[in-house]
Every structure is written in C-alpha cells, then in structure tokens.
C-alpha cells in the first residue's frame, strides 16, 4: 500500500533526515489493555508533526509517554539536542543504562528513562494539556514566571542571590518578566497580566497555556488538542501563533488535534493512529488520500473494511 511503496523514498523525507524525536516500537499496556501497540514514528526538527486518530486511539497515551507522565511498557524515545545523533550513538546510550549522553551534534536523551519533571527541565520538552491546567488562582504574569522556575533557580530549588535580593537576582527577575511580556505581547494579553488566569475566557486560557510552555524554552513543544473548543476565529489565531513559534523560535511542535483545518493547514507531517497502532504516516496530502485513514474516519462498507484490516495486518 501507500506506506510500503513509499518506503524507498522515505530516506529522503525531511523528518527522517533531521529528526528531533525518534519513537521506536513504543507500547503501553495498562493491565490487559494495550493502549499503544508497537508505534514507531519520527518527528522532524523545526516541523509541525500532528498525531491524529479517532477517540481512544492512544494519542494522549503516546503524549504521556513522551513527556514522562507514563513509563512505557516497551520502546525507546530518543530526543536529540543540537542535531540528530547516529543510530550507533543512540544504541550506545541505550546500552550504557544512562538516561542521556553526548552525541556529535549535541546531546541525546532517552525520554522513557527520565521522570516527568526532568523530561521538561533536562530534555526540554514542554507540553500543554487536553483539559487546561493553568494555575488559575495566580495571575497571568505569575503563571509565566513559574514556568521559568528552572532558569531562575540553581538546581531547581533556591537561588542564593534571591534570598539576599542582590542586584544580580533583580536583573534575572527583570529578564524573566521581560520574557513573560514578550509572550504576553505575542498572545495579546499584556493588558490582563495582573488578572488571575482563571478569569480568562477559554480561548485565551488555551493560548496562555501555550505561552507558559514556551517560557520554559523548549526544543519540542507537545500540544494536546490545542484547538479543542475554539471558534473558527480563535482557531485561525492559534494557527498563526503556532506557525510563528516554529518560524521564530526554531521549536519543533508535536500536536494532537481533531480539528482538520488546523492539522492540514499547519502540519508538515501527519501520523495517524487507530486502536493503538499506526495506520498511516506522511505529508498531509498523502494522509488525506490514504484509504485506511478514510476508512477509519468516514467508515466503510463491511467488505472494504475487511480489506483494510487485512492490509493493516500485513
């Protein structure tokens, strides 16, 4: 089928040439339930990679594995800083038993070996949540400052200069506020900086959550259904924001989305999951025309579905 006939050409794909995240044979079982079954895909550096699929396909589980909230049952999640590492380097780190190692291009991290907060602070993978998780009782500015906790502290806890309120600390804090302001300008919420985050309308909360994730200065930004519940105008503003993040911040974006207008418009690469397995992987155009994707999204006659299942199994 489409995936197999394209395999010789695959080596020339942008995301295979310069990957930021390599997911290898990822499986996640909860007791007897297989939520994710042997999924492998690659997210390209500087690209927007979308993970789509019907409800219950295991998209959020994949996300939770990548961001360290779940420990995968099996599989390897390699993230590359600086540039892609060779397979030999990845295998070397895997064999070493460590969670990270240096590579020629920079560093590589095995995310399945890191606890969630280190996925964020060491590997610099930021994420947002399907049900928004802002600090609703804190102001918008405070939300963005909490996000910069790691850069404001040494060893993630205290900052000796802050205890004494030294000028060096004041400069640092000023820098953090400036950074927050930059993002507030970007999402158009400067005027509401001193309002509690819980008072914002839904669409603004979504954008604030993205800005908060970006304040951690990530190399990979994982967005779990960023357009859920947005109206078309807000959805268009979100597209604009995501494209500008990719353009100006060289951050790679991995997103789960149901809204096809967002997926088709901004993503460079689409991975389709169904029942925990990958059924298609390619550019938006390829995926749009893939019969299995059409089958899983639109439904097909029994006979056709049987063919699709045989193909999926093959």
């Amino acid at each position, binding site marked *: 089928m489409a995936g197999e006939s394209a395999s010789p050409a695959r080596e020339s794909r942008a995301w295979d040439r310069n990957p930021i995240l390599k997911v290898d044979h990822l499986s996640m079982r909860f007791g007897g339930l297989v939520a994710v079954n042997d999924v492998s895909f690659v997210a390209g550096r500087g690209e927007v990679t979308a993970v789509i699929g019907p409800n219950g396909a295991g998209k959020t589980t994949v996300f939770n594995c990548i961001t360290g909230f779940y420990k995968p049952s099996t599989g390897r999640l390699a993230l590359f800083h600086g540039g892609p590492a060779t397979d030999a380097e990845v295998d070397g780190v895997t064999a070493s038993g460590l969670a990270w190692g240096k590579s020629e291009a920079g560093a590589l991290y095995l995310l399945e070996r890191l606890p969630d*907060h280190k996925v964020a602070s060491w590997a610099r993978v*930021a994420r947002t949540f399907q049900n928004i*998780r802002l*600090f*609703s009782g804190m102001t918008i500015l405070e939300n963005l400052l909490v996000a910069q906790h790691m850069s404001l502290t040494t060893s993630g806890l205290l900052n000796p200069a802050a205890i004494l309120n030294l000028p060096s600390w004041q400069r640092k804090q000023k820098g953090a506020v400036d950074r927050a302001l930059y993002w507030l300008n970007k999402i158009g919420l400067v005027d509401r900086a001193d309002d509690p985050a819980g008072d914002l309308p839904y669409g603004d909360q979504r954008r604030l959550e993205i800005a908060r994730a970006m304040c951690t200065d990530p190399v990979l930004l994982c967005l779990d259904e960023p357009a859920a519940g947005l109206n078309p105008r807000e959805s268009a503003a979100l597209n604009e924001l995501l494209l500008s993040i990719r353009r100006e911040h060289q951050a790679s974006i991995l997103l789960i989305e149901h809204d096809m207008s967002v997926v088709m418009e901004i993503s460079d690469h689409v991975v389709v999951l169904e029942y925990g397995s990958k059924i298609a992987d390619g550019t938006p155009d390829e995926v749009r025309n893939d019969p299995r994707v059409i089958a899983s999204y639109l439904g097909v006659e029994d006979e056709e579905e049987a063919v699709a299942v045989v193909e999926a199994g093959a």
Partner: protein
Amino acid sequence: MAPVSGSDLADVPDPSPVPAEKPRGPERTSAVAGAFKDALVSGLLTALLFLPLVGFRASESSTGSLVLTYRFGLVAIFAGIVMVGRFLLMVTVWNPNRPPRRVSTTPGVMARLGALASPAVKPVFFSFAILYPFLSILLAGGLSPSRYWVDLGIYVLTYVMLGWGLNIVVGLAGLLDLGYVAFYAVGAYTFALLSTSVPINDFFAGTLGDDFWTAWAFWICLPLSGILAAMWGVILGFPVLRLRGDYLAIVTLAFGEIIRLVLINWVSLTNGGAGISSIPPITFFGVPFDSSETGFASIFGLEFNSMHRMFFLYFVILGLAALTAVVTIRLRKMPVGRAWEALREDEIACRSLGINTTLTKLTAFATGAMFGGFAGAFFAVRIRFVSPESFTFMESAVILAIVVLGGMGSQMGVAGAAILLIGGMELLRNLSFLKADFLFGSDFDPSLYRMLIFGFAMVAVMVWRPRGLVSSRMPTIFLKERKAVSGSLVKEGHG
C-alpha cells in the same frame, strides 16, 4: 465559565424558588405565616428533643443519694431560642420572596475593603503588638498586675507564630498536615534535653565558666531546635510526600502521635510522662533575670521585678513571629515560594514545567517544621517544663483550625484567627455572668464549654466565610496594579 464566589451565599439553593415577577403583597404575609408555623414546629421539636437530655438531671444530694432535679425552664429557654432564631431566619435569609443575590467573580466587598485597608493593617498590627505590653501596664495599673495580660500576649503570639509556620505547609503548598505539633515537640524537647544535659554543662564549665551553659543554652539551642525540627520534617516528608489529600493527612496525624508516644515511652531519655523540669530560664543574651549583682535589673539600674523576664519573653516571641512572617513574605516572592503556590494550584502542571515536586514539597515541609521547632524551644523556655501532655493531637487541630479559619495563605488572616481563637478561648474563662441562677447555676464552669463554643464558632465561620477570614490572595508580582485574586479561583491543594 462563571466561578461562583466562595464567600457568597448565592450558591446556597433557595428552599422554594418563587418567580420574582409574582405580586409581593400577599406572598409576604403568607411567608410570615409560613415562617411562624415553621418556627412553632421547630420549637416543639427542640422541646421534645431537649426534654430528656436537659430537662431531667440526676444529681447527688448532700446525703450521697441520687435525686432527680427538673430543669423545664432551661428547656423552654432553648426551645424559645430555636423558635425565635428560626422565625427570624425564615423571614430574612431564607425568605422565598428575597431577591436572589447577584453572583460575581470579583472579590467581595469584604475582600475589597481588606485590599484597601491592607497597607495600613500590617503596620497597625505590628505597632500594636510592640506597644501591647506597655498598654497592659497602663491599663492594668502597674508592672505586676499586668502579668496576666502579658502572659496572654505571649500565649497568643506563640499560636500566631505556629499558625504562620503551618501556613507555609497548608496555606501555600497545599499539603494537609495534621501532625504539626510533632515539630513543636521536637523543638521543645531539643532545647529541654540539651539545656539540662549534664555532660554538655560539664564540658562548658571546664572551658567557658560554670554558668556559661545555663546562661546561653537557649540562644545556642534555638537554632538547633529549628534545624532538628526541619530535619524531622524532611525525614517525615521523604516517604509520605507521594501521598495526597486524605492519605497524607492520616500519615502526618500518625507521625504526630508516634512522636508523642516515643516521648512517653523512651523513659531513659525523655523521663516519660513525668516530663523534663528545671529547664534553665531565658536570659537577656547571657544576663540572667535575677536579683543578684550581675542580674538584669542591677545592670540596667532597675528595681528587680520578675516581670522583666516576662516582658523579655514577650519580645522574644514577637521577634520570632516577625521572623516567620518576614521569611514567608520573602519566600513567596522567590521562585521556591511561587513553586509552592503553583503546586497547590496544579501539581501535574508543575511537573510539566520541570519543577521537581518532591523537592519543592520537602522544602515547604522543612521550612514549616523549622518554625515549629523555634516555637517549641520558646515554649520550653517559657514554661521551663516539658511533658508529652503538651503535644497532643488537640494542639495540631487548634493550629490547623487557626490556618483554615484565617484563610489559607493569608498572614493577616492567620494572625487574626489566632487572636480570635486563642484569645477568645482564654477570655471565655471569665464569663462569670453565666453563673446566674436563672441560667446555669453557680456550679456552672463556663470554661468547660470552651470547646463547644469553639466548635460553634468554627462552623459559623465556615458557613459564612468558607475560605476563611481573608479569602483573597495577593499576587507576588505585578506589572501595573496589584489586584487581589478572589478566593473562589484559588485552589486549596490536593494534599
């Protein structure tokens, strides 16, 4: 989304919603009639309920035999109170004709008033605290008669400090700690054991003079008490901080009890239930408060009075409480303080931002425990006697009540709640008018009812101000204007 203001009564469902456009005249009379009927039924029920409970009383006569006394008057009084109260409530607050109150997301009137007055409240409170002993001399008419009031001030300030210490754990980090008294006990016993230790005394007697240890024990042990309590905070915190909510509360409760039971049963070290006595008294940085030549009074040219020591104790606890407050205010503006509050708001979001939640919770536990340890050392030097009796679960409950009643996270609220609860409970000892014959009789001791009244007060505050006395939260940083955050948006933590 429109979050309902927590302090607002509007979220209490109306007992019988009546459309507002109905004519009000006839409705009103029927409402009063209904209220009257309701009050009558309630009064009757109260009378029936209280008749066996209150109406009959078996007391011992002078010959030793039991006699039955009747107190129908008292039953009637109770029934009357319920009837009148029920009637008043039915025609006012629970009146079906009452227009529904507007629901607002902005902070309530009280919160806004509080925000307006807040710049003035703190200096006024602090200057009053400094002037309090002098005021009590003036009002009580002399140094010695003011003893009761200064002692009360010390007592209240101890709880203010404990409340502020626990506020870091419960109010800021949102970790429900029911065993805070354990750290208070660790601090008190650290000082008590070290200051009465013979080897340490001998060691210093050989090098720095015979009186050195008695004179300086408190000032050397004070930081040690804090450090040891913080260490125990970490020891407790490390295994239990993966627990949340109710489970964390239960384990901290158990920890408090374990410490107390160890103190009772490790007789060779702690002298068991008999406690440790003859703890050296506090000194003015090495100068004892006694009538000798080298005492405080003669050095400063004053006439000796035992109240000098009390005064000094008052200012020591005031200083310690102020230290707690200043450190907390400073920490709130630092990344670690913001991380505590973020942890209370949403722990999972914290982890997604790279914050090590275990470490952050441990710092909160250790910081809170350290101030508990300071307060414990002060307790030991004030009473000069420690025993496990002083560190029961009741103490933890009172301190937690102060934090919850004050409004979690608010320092002024906690201070106010400590003054209300501890000062109020103390003043209840003096309600001699309740001994009147028509009320409870001369053998009635109002102080026995303190806990009952305390409980009622808690229920009342929780009904009217569910987020505590001060329900809004002040942001730690602002761009243009510092606006209070309504308590309804602030989360209480998952433990």
